[in-house]
């Protein structure tokens, strides 16, 4: 046995952990999440820029999500409008329906629905893709070929979701309002001009800003969670499945938390 090996043993037995093995693991995980996020901001501003990969990912995240988003947003617009009508009718205020759905969709549902669909579609695919790349050592292969895998894989994907989710949110909002319009038109015979005039009367600039900020945050979260889970997935095919699954669950959870926090901040701003 080597003397250096013996030297190590007493040290490990006395103070190897700050708190305990279990708590240390939790804090190590937090540290690694923190470091992973920090690395994004360190790397995003410095060359080389993987423009081709960013564009490719934007296409994946944005364009390929359009059919699903379109159908979902449209249905949500119709259903929400239809379900809101009875309670407004009780006050004889069905003419306020466009204002109501405008506020609901622009402020909350547009960003939230987009984020949830994207978590499911984009988050899981990023988690699974990076997870399988980790498992099959593709990430290591990039690293040993002196290509920064973080930059190529993580930065490009996180940028793609950060740019595309807000764009998708705007699209979702519009399609959902369109669905709402069709339902309102069918029942109250409101014209499209009146409808959209009411829609824009009901919302303020702050609503649109808050909605955009929120969706940027959601996009970043979805990309980041998917990448983190995939990038750090455990070995084996099971790790891939776990990475995909926990990407979706964690991203959705964080999206709701962020929604709550942003709402608090926006309300505080609105109150001033």
């Amino acid at each position, binding site marked *: 046995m080597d003397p250096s090996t013996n030297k190590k043993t007493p*040290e*490990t037995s006395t103070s*190897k*952990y*700050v*708190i305990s093995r279990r708590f*240390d693991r*939790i*804090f*190590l*995980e*937090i*540290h*690694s*999440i*923190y*470091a992973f996020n920090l690395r994004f901001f360190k790397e995003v501003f410095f060359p080389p820029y993987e423009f081709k990969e960013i564009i490719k990912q934007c296409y994946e995240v944005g364009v390929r999500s359009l059919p699903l988003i379109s159908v979902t947003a449209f249905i949500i617009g119709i259903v929400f409008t239809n379900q809101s009508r009875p309670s407004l009718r009780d*006050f004889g205020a069905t003419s306020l329906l466009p204002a109501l759905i405008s506020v609901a969709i622009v402020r909350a549902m547009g960003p939230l629905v987009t984020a949830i669909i994207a978590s499911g579609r984009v988050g899981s695919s990023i988690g699974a893709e990076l997870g399988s790349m980790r498992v099959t050592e593709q990430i290591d292969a990039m690293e040993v070929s002196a290509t920064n895998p973080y930059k190529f894989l993580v930065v490009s994907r996180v940028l793609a979701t950060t740019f595309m989710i807000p764009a998708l949110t705007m699209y979702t909002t519009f399609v959902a309002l369109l669905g709402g319009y069709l339902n309102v038109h069918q029942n109250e015979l409101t014209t499209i001009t009146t409808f959209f005039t009411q829609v824009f009367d009901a919302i303020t600039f702050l609503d649109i800003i808050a909605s955009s900020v929120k969706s940027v945050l959601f996009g970043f979260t979805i990309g980041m969670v998917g990448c983190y889970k995939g990038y750090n997935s455990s070995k084996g095919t099971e790790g891939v499945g776990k990475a995909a699954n926990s990407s979706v669950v964690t991203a959705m959870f964080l999206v709701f938390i962020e929604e709550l*926090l942003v709402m*608090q*901040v926006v*309300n*505080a701003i609105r*109150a*001033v």
Partner: protein
Amino acid sequence: MSTADNKRSVLVGIFVLVGLVILVAGIFMLAGQQKRFISSVSLKAVFDDVAGLKSGNNVWFSGVKIGTVKKIEFYGDSQVEVTLSVEESAQQYIRKDAVARISSESFIGNKNIVIEGGTQKAPPVQDGDRITAVNPLDTDELVETLQKNNNNLAAITSDIKQLTSGLTKGEGTMGKLLTDSTLANDIGAMVANLQQTTQNTARASRALNQFTAKLNTPGGLANQALTDTTVYSQLRSSMAQLQEATNSAAALTENLRETSAKLNNERNAMGVLLTDEEFARNLKNTMQNLETSSEKFDQNMEALQSNILFRGFFKKQAKEEEERLEELQKQQ
């Protein structure tokens, strides 16, 4: 990774977690303590009934949101003390005699507190001041009042109905007035007369108008006369004199009439004229009267020339003459 690195990572992890917790807590505090960063003063008001007012509801002053309800507590037997948090910037506009009233943001919406009234005489409120509370006009009371109004309206309409039906049946003075046809004819005639009178009046006033218009024509003689107040008083006295003259003339005519009547009544005119002493005396009187009256007329004319309308005119003429002379003198 060595143990030391590991430990460092764990510590960073703890630090990050603590930071996150503080951030989240901060955001919730921010939302919970709306406007806590704006310095505010607190005002109190005691209500009998706050009608569902909650802490956090808005406080309005002149239609501007100036704060929120901070606290609602029971006070005394059954009253409620409401503490309002009001922006410091609005403090100077609220006077000590302002009143707080509970109102609604809409018919079904949230309650709020409206501060109103207050006069410049009273000083601005201070932190912790209590302002007078006006108890709320709640929805029930409103409906009750509306009901009272409704009842009153119903009573009024029934009265009016009765009245109009009486009128159509010819009852009462007004009814008679409206239904009696002879009276109507009389009134018709009366109206016709009135109309004529009015027409006459109109004509007269038209004439008068024309006259006054003439009078008003600037530079006109009459205008000059009328605008001068001294002229007016003189005019008045001249008129009086004219009246006197007329009276004298009337007396003369009367005497003449008497005389002629006597002439007719006596046996023969010439005989009376020649023989009757009385007649002779009368005649003499008459002649005297005539003499005095003509003398007075002369005087009148003189007065007219010197005193009345034309005096100003003559004066003016004299003045112009004077000016002309002065000018001549200046030229020389």
